[in-house]
């Protein structure tokens, strides 16, 4: 970390040396090293006030909004306060200029883009736990964010200790990474002072950040820092809702917020910058740095998944890992099946479909048609003993990010599902459907009660329907709508057939008689061992990332099968059914660790589809009124 300061100071006097490219190269190289990322503190895990300003940090986040590009002084001329000499300074990676800026001729204007980033919505606790325990220095102190409740009188002392502790830790780490660490530089001490000062305001901000500043998290009840991420190059490559791991320089200069405060106070008529932004806009675009820190990006890495158990390299590059996992997949699958079956009231077929659903993924789009989605409607869920909540808790244990949405009338009418542009604050107000890719959305339809949906409710249900059918969300831009493709696994738990469309409906066949349900449910509240859980988690994430193909032979036999089935009874199978069977076959193969479709898997897919359909027909007959 320290090298950064040296680098900056060394290069600042010589702004045109092309150091920028070199610096980025330097960091990229270092971060590629095996466990290099472990010694960079993460904003996700370490509370902001324990981090040094102007140090290198990382942040695992989702791009929630994109602000306008801003022009900044790339190079400017300043007067050194001590020597009174004119010096050229570099404004890159900084929010605030040092010393007074002088005349304009020598200023170089450059452009950068700001993204508003939030932690990945719906990230499950186990992901946070595991990724924070990866960090060497946090391991020393168990759970950093919660263990801190120091008493007021003792704070400063204890804080100093802690800070020293951390500092030494942080200095030690660079050693291991082969970066030289010098004695504490004056800037660092300054940084310490800053931290202490901010310590006083941090607790209040943590307890009630929403009271005066809406941090715009997509899901209600989310916590964590949001961040203004400043990108200096290739910002066109980023898209809204991308998940990233950002390495950058933390900037929490109090001057930023001070400026904002002053702005509010004084309203001079003649300042042209004054009337450009409304108060809300000010608040959103330059919030106090203690709440929303700025992060100047050196390197941003798109995350294909946010499962910390998987190695950071892509699967293709990691053939050893891939082959070892592939060989194990069939056995893990069997284990998972036995684990899930009792949860689904002893229904093995439903458990199998649930696995298929959990590894589904929109892998491609043909014009408007998303391929690979597999929305599952689990009907026949018991409504007693908060079965659905318990069920969701299990899912939560398995997937990296998920969200439980009870489809109660109140939720449907009052929650904001679709993000909406707020023009007066000039930002995209988030909604519950602004989710990262591969998030599991659990819709609990058993919560539905009689009543009337109002306009907002109807719009929300339509949005859910669109999400399921087309895997897209139409964001509301007031004057027009804009379509954002998404990739969300939707699981609907309902009593009867869901009112929402779904790719596949399976009726739960309970092996337990209703009177014993309560008893049974309380007994299945199983907590598997961590090692087993981790195996499941890895399995699900890997299966989703695998490639898949169909050979010509199998294509032929699938075609033959289809034609034969149609010959016998044209009503039995439609094009839509074939679509679904192809998806089921694909997911079935992947779940077994096979990257191409075999004849066996196809037959098996046909078989389980047949079972499912016969069950549905049976159910229709019983109920009679089901459409």
């Amino acid at each position: 970390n320290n090298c950064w300061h040296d680098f900056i100071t060394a290069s600042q006097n010589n702004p045109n040396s092309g150091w920028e490219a070199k610096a980025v190269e330097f960091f990229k190289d270092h971060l590629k090293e095996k466990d290099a990322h472990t010694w960079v503190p993460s904003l996700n895990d370490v509370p902001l006030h324990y981090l040094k300003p102007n140090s290198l940090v990382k942040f695992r986040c989702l791009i929630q909004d994109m602000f306008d590009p801003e022009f900044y002084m790339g190079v400017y001329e300043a007067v050194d306060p001590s020597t009174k000499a004119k010096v050229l300074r570099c404004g890159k990676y900084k929010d605030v200029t040092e010393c007074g800026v002088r005349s304009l001729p020598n200023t170089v204007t450059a452009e950068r883009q700001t993204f508003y980033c939030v932690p990945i919505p719906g990230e499950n606790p186990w992901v946070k736990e595991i990724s924070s325990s990866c960090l060497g220095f946090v391991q020393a102190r168990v759970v950093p964010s919660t263990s801190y409740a120091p008493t007021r009188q003792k704070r400063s002392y204890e804080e100093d200790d802690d800070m020293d502790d951390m500092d030494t830790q942080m200095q030690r780490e660079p050693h291991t990474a082969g970066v030289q660490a010098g004695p504490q530089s004056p800037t660092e001490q300054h940084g310490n002072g800053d931290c202490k000062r901010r310590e006083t305001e941090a607790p209040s901000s943590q307890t009630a950040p929403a009271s005066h500043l809406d941090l715009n998290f997509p899901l209600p009840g989310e916590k964590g820092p949001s961040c203004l991420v400043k990108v200096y190059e290739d910002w066109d490559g980023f898209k809204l809702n991308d998940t990233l791991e950002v390495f950058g320089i933390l900037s929490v200069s109090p001057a930023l917020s001070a400026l904002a405060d002053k702005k509010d106070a004084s309203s001079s008529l003649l300042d042209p910058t004054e009337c450009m932004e409304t108060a809300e806009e000010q608040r959103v675009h330059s919030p106090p740095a203690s709440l929303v820190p700025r992060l100047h990006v050196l390197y941003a890495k798109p995350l294909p998944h946010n499962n910390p158990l998987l190695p950071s390299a892509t699967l293709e590059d990691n053939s050893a890992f891939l082959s070892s996992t592939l060989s194990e997949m069939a056995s893990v699958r069997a284990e998972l099946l036995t684990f899930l079956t009792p949860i689904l009231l002893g229904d093995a077929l439903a458990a199998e479909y649930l696995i298929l659903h959990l590894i589904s993924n929109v892998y491609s789009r043909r014009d408007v048609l998303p391929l690979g989605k597999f929305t599952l409607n689990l009907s026949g869920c018991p409504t007693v003993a908060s079965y659905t909540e318990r069920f969701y808790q299990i899912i939560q244990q398995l997937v990296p990010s998920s969200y439980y949405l009870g489809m109660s009338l109140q939720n449907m009418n009052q929650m904001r599902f679709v993000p909406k542009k707020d023009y007066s604050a000039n930002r995209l107000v988030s909604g519950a459907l602004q989710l990262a890719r591969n998030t599991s959305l659990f819709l609990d339809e058993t919560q539905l009660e009689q009543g009337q949906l109002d306009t907002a409710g109807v719009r929300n249900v339509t949005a859910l329907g669109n999400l399921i059918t087309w895997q897209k969300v139409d964001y509301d831009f007031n004057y027009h709508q804009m379509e954002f493709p998404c990739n969300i696994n939707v699981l609907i738990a309902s009593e009867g057939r869901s009112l929402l469309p779904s790719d596949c409906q399976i009726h739960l066949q309970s092996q337990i008689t209703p009177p014993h349900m309560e008893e049974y449910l309380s007994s299945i509240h199983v907590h598997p061992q961590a090692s087993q859980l981790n195996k499941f988690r890895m399995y699900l994430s890997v299966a989703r990332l695998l490639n898949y193909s169909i050979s010509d032979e199998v294509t032929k036999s699938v075609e033959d099968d289809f034609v034969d089935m149609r010959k016998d009874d044209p009503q039995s199978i439609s094009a839509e059914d074939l679509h679904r069977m192809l998806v089921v076959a694909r997911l079935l193969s992947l779940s077994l660790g096979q990257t191409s479709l075999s004849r066996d898997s196809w037959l098996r897919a046909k078989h389980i589809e047949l079972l499912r359909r016969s069950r549905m027909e049976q159910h229709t007959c019983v109920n009679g009124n089901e459409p």
Partner: protein
Amino acid sequence: MSSPTSTPGGRKRGRNTNPSTPSSEGPTSPPSQRRRGQDSSTGDLMPMPTSPATDMLSPAAPQDNSLLSSPRPSGTNLLPNEVDMSSPLMYGTPSSRVEGTPRSGVRGTPARQRPDLGSVRKAPQVDLQSEPPSADGAVTSESNTGQRLVIWGTDVNVGTCKEKFQRKVMVFISVVGDPVLNVNCLHVQSFDAELYRQLICYPQEVIPTFDMAVNELFFERFPDSILEFQIQVRPYNALKTRNMRNLNPEDIDQLITISGMVIRTSQLIPEMQEAFFQCQVCAFSTRVEVDRGRIAEPSVCRNCNTTHSLAIVHNRSVFSDKQMVKIQESPEDMPAGQTPHTTIVYAHNDLVDKVQPGDRINITGVYRAVPMRANPRQSNVKSVYKTHIDAIHFHKTDEKRLHGLDEDAEQKLFTEDRVQTLKELAAKPDVYERLSSALAPSIYEHEDIKKGILLQLFGGARKDFSQTGRGNFRADVNILLCGDPGTSKSQLLQYVYNLVPRGQYTSGKGSSAVGLTAYVMRDPETRQLVLQTGALVLSDNGICCIDEFDKMSDSTRSVLHEVMEQQTLSIAKAGIICQLNARTSVLAAANPIESQWNPKKTTIENIQLPHTLLSRFDLIFLMLDPQDEAYDRRLAHHLVSLYYQSEEQIEEEFLDMAVLRDYIAYARTYINPRLSEEASQALIEAYVDMRKIGSGRGMVSAYPRQLESLIRLAEAHAKVRFSEKVETIDVEEAKRLHREALKQSATDPRTGFVDISILTTGMSATARKRKEEVAQALKKLIQAKGKTPAMKYQQLLEDLRGQSENAITKELFDEALRALADEDYLTVTGKTVRLLA
């Protein structure tokens, strides 16, 4: 010094923007004047009391005259010397207002300040000969007259520039009595590239020069005309219309044109242009101009030498109108997956309130970057600039949409290469097949339906018959798809909706009549009634996709009658009565009423739509499961390959969606085919043939509506070929497609014949004939019964059934009874049938 008569209190109160203020002579003359080393306090014209001649010279002049105390120029015909280098700098400054008395002539007409250009008057001129340029190395001095004056920091030579522009104006524009002159920059470029470059790079200096040139020219030609203020030049269409996303630091202080949509306009901001200070001690007054948003408050009164005695007098200061407009990228210009950018625009003076939120505009202006204000108490400042655009010209791109076709808006910019590719594509003999297969490739087969939709996308040629009283002739093709659920109708609709730039997608279930048309609501902010347009109006010149057409309520459907034939929407609500254009093609999808298509029934019976509406569709297609082995095999292959082919393979196989989109846009904009002689003959023949088919069986099988459909389809097909002429092949294809659609939808299930009357009257001719027969049989039966005034309903039905050899349904029987009742032969009351005669 101060003129004694120039103190009418209220004259400059409020946001008075009329800059013809009297007597601004004083210690604060612009520095340009001081630069010339003259006595800056007097300028070149001495203040004089109001001359009585003023009123005589221009008795019709507005209010100002009597109040003006400014000096009179020596005469109206006094034109400023061309080489008077001070004039550009005096332009728009207080000193030029001094000459404002006679309301004609270039000196007489008050110049209006141009806050949009900022403090141009501060720009010093540099004589290249005496003082070599320092920073920017301005070298241009093309003038051979030895005049080597350029505006400092630029290479703009005032004289040359002016001259050039005057010549340009002579070439291109004839001035009409309008105080604003809009100048197309493309014309400037074609006239003189160098001048154009200067205009783009130094708008702040060049535009005032243009102003001056135009005024000189104007008053030279029309020395007696009276204008409210001097003519202002408003250039537009600079270089290329740039995307907001492309703006970068190099564009700062340059003239740019960008397009976007207005999302917010601020309240009106009175911006001080000139502050009025009065000494508290001696009442000496002075004026200070605002320089870059700041006023240098004079600390010493020059009259009595008291320090800090001057106080600002607000209602005698001069303000100008200013408004902040926020614009956002148009959705079409944006890359997928990103959010739109916004830019702040300042509108000044008469441009204020020219645009409303929601307007699509092209704006020309100067791009500015202002550093964030340094805080006096802090040495650190934010290293960020605020950017905005000072608007010079607004052009609303959708202004005319409500009234007529706006060709500009439709015109997408096609590069030469693109046009070349498109033309090459059009030259291919199988372009029609290629395009139709490129349409929704993920949907299998249904070739004819895709072809129909393709023709719909191109549309027919617009014809105006308003002179003969017919009004506009519908050029848009309407298509209805009906068929079994799960035959990817919705997918086709989604595809079309995604393909066309102005498409709307609604579902019949979820939309109400107002949602489709327009509704009046009270704006929450302004409390004014505003007209909110619905899907049909929004898709004007586009396609409105309506899914689940059958689930639409009758009242909703009824609004479609007007739209689908007259292409307008009439609204009479809450005092707003208007007719909106809705030249939209309707692509609707309907499910059969019994969830499965019943082949034994007619289209009308299957989808239960009023025939009045059905007849407005040019093509009605059935999307049915063909249930045929070969088809199944191909379908299976198609689907399987969909699931494993990689993106690249797909790309190779089919035309890119973007190419298709451009192709359609190009054809829609530039190709306007007309019927050739042979084609008209072919159409006539086709129509006559269609009529003949029916007449043989005693029914009519074609109506003029069908002929119109044929013409539209033929024109659309000619557009596909990029042909300016509709030829016989187009008519052939139109005929074929029309027949295919008819065969599918208007086949009488009882006879197997194509019968257009199913669509036009809702009942096939055979069915009508049969009804007649049953009624006659019933009548006979009743007559045979003799003198029974009343009969049991059930009894009668059974008798008739026993008598007739065909099965008689209850419905048929009821219809027969109704027919007889219409003849006043009998009445039906409850379960009894009474004879009337």
